[in-house]
């Protein structure tokens, strides 16, 4: 793929050995990569650096905080009750992920491996539904939740997120189930294993990468979603992190230091999750692209 570089290397005049590694490193590809890395990382760095700047330093463009302080972090938790938002987000995201993985596994298995009539139609319908802009859903969702008394509750948001993320999870899981050799589950059936047992001990271990992908995507979606959370759970007690951060400031002042401290904390679990499951995330992102 990079053969173009090879012929040109011997033609160059030999460099002093000290310079050689550095000079070899300088080429268009690496310069491009450096630019890309700076483009992505600089704003992220700016956020973290600002979160350590105290009251007066916030208004400066110091690249490195001159007097780093943790006061923003303590403010976020003591004066702004950020712990509640984290707790709410964690409860909603974990519950949503658990429910979506359970229901999605069963449905993905049924629609991929069992003789359900019209399963292709169902899959296409699920895809269409998942393309729908969320703004078209919030008003009826709001009324539905109000009628059953689930506004400003965990279960209302969990139910909404479960429905929003299930179509993608079913698609991902079904794709993985399709690739498992049919003989394996037939053996289990013949040996008298119950269907649930078959899914649990034969299918699931084989589809573990699919579970990771669907799980991470569901969790990230629930952790970052704003519009539905704002519409259904705007009471302070049930605010998730995005709603909490968006409504942090007053009318005229925006406490950026506190916001960024809270943001850095809120981004940590997602960053770890994405780092740990990097391959699963990339395979989920590119599922559409590679299948065509």
């Amino acid at each position, binding site marked *: *793929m*990079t053969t173009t570089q090879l012929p040109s290397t011997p033609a160059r005049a030999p460099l002093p050995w000290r310079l050689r590694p550095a000079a070899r490193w300088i080429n268009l590809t*690496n310069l491009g*990569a450096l630019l*890309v890395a700076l483009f*992505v990382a600089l*704003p992220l760095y*700016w956020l973290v650096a*600002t979160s350590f700047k105290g009251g007066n330093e916030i208004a400066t463009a110091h690249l490195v905080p001159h007097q780093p302080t943790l006061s923003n972090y303590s403010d976020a938790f003591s004066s702004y009750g950020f712990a509640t938002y984290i707790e709410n987000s964690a409860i909603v995201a974990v519950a949503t992920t658990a429910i979506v993985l359970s*229901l999605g596994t*069963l*449905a993905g298995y*049924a*629609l991929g491996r069992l*003789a*359900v*009539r019209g*399963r292709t139609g*169902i899959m296409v319908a*699920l895809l269409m539904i998942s393309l*729908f802009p*969320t*703004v*078209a*859903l919030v*008003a*009826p969702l709001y009324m*539905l939740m109000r009628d059953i008394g689930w506004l400003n509750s965990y279960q209302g948001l969990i139910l*909404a997120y*479960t*429905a929003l993320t*299930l179509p993608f999870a079913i698609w991902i899981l079904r794709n993985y189930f399709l690739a498992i*050799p049919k003989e*394996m589950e*037939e*053996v289990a*059936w013949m040996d008298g294993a119950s269907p649930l047992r078959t899914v649990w001990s034969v299918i699931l271990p084989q589809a573990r990468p699919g579970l990771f992908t669907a799980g991470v995507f569901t969790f*990230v979606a629930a*952790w*970052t979603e*704003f*519009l539905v959370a704002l519409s259904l759970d705007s009471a302070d007690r049930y605010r998730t992190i*995005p709603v909490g*951060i*968006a409504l942090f400031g007053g009318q005229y002042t*925006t406490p*950026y230091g506190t916001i*960024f401290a809270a*943001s850095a904390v809120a981004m940590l679990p*997602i*960053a770890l999750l*994405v*780092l740990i499951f*990097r391959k699963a995330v*990339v395979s989920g*992102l*590119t599922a*559409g*692209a*590679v299948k065509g």
Partner: protein
Amino acid sequence: MPNAQTRSGPAAAAPVRTPTAERRRRAGSALERRSARLGWLFASPALLVVAAVMVFPVVFSVVMSFSDVQVTGSGIHLGSATTGNYALVFQSGRWQHALFFTVLYTVATVTVEMVLGTAIALVLERMKTGRGWMMALLLMPWAMITVISAELWSYVYNGVYGVLNSVLHPLFGHDTNVLGTPVQASVAMAVADIWKTTPFVAIIVLAGLVMLPGDIVEAARIDGAGGWTIFWKVRMPLLRPTLAIAVMFRILQAFGLFDLPYVLTNGGPGTSTESLAVLGYRVLFQDLKFGPGAAVATSTAALVLIGCLLFLKVFRAQVGQEEN
């Protein structure tokens, strides 16, 4: 696994109707019926949730948009059927501006993101070391809470102590609040969007690049094609389905734009950066005009679906023409 081999082996090799084969066949159809029953049992919880929380609201939204909705103390009455909501919405200057803004914003950001994302993917493809780290870095903006990136950029753009102002101040000799004028605010918002979503495009395009058959490129090179020619005449055409998918995803997301304008500009200055989704939300939840609000929301959904279908059609027609 070896069990499976020995069990299915003989039956497959001898399709003669031995008693064993007959029993096996019957067992197969019974298994199929059982499989179908089980299938519905397994699929129904998920399908019911999706139907109750997504299909029903969509239908209800459409019905509401065609109704003379009355909001009373006890709740909402749908009232008589009417197209008045749509007439009201389509004639309002605010909706027309939101439509104009959303379409222009979508076209501009998606174009820049595709070009930039493809360039990044090409760089990543050539990287020999550190590609894994780069991918991890690229995933960060994607996984970031949009509200947080909006707050971050609003700090960068702040007219008094924002970092952009501290760069521009020595040049112009005065403070610059880019969020203060409509055109600059739109561009500033687009930049924030491009920063967050270009990595997503890059990752998709990279996956497409890696999947390209290497021998075709090799053949072109042997035929004497230069790097530039190979890129435009060989790789780009092969990459087009991947690019089309990325464009589709991005159009769908960009058209539903809500979090970024809501937090970064609050639709302002004035209503100059008000997207269709923000307008729909405000009409629904701030003005409590459910009929017109549903009309805004429903027409937004319809427009984006039509837009995607048109794009696919043009894309297919173009590819078809070149194949003939």
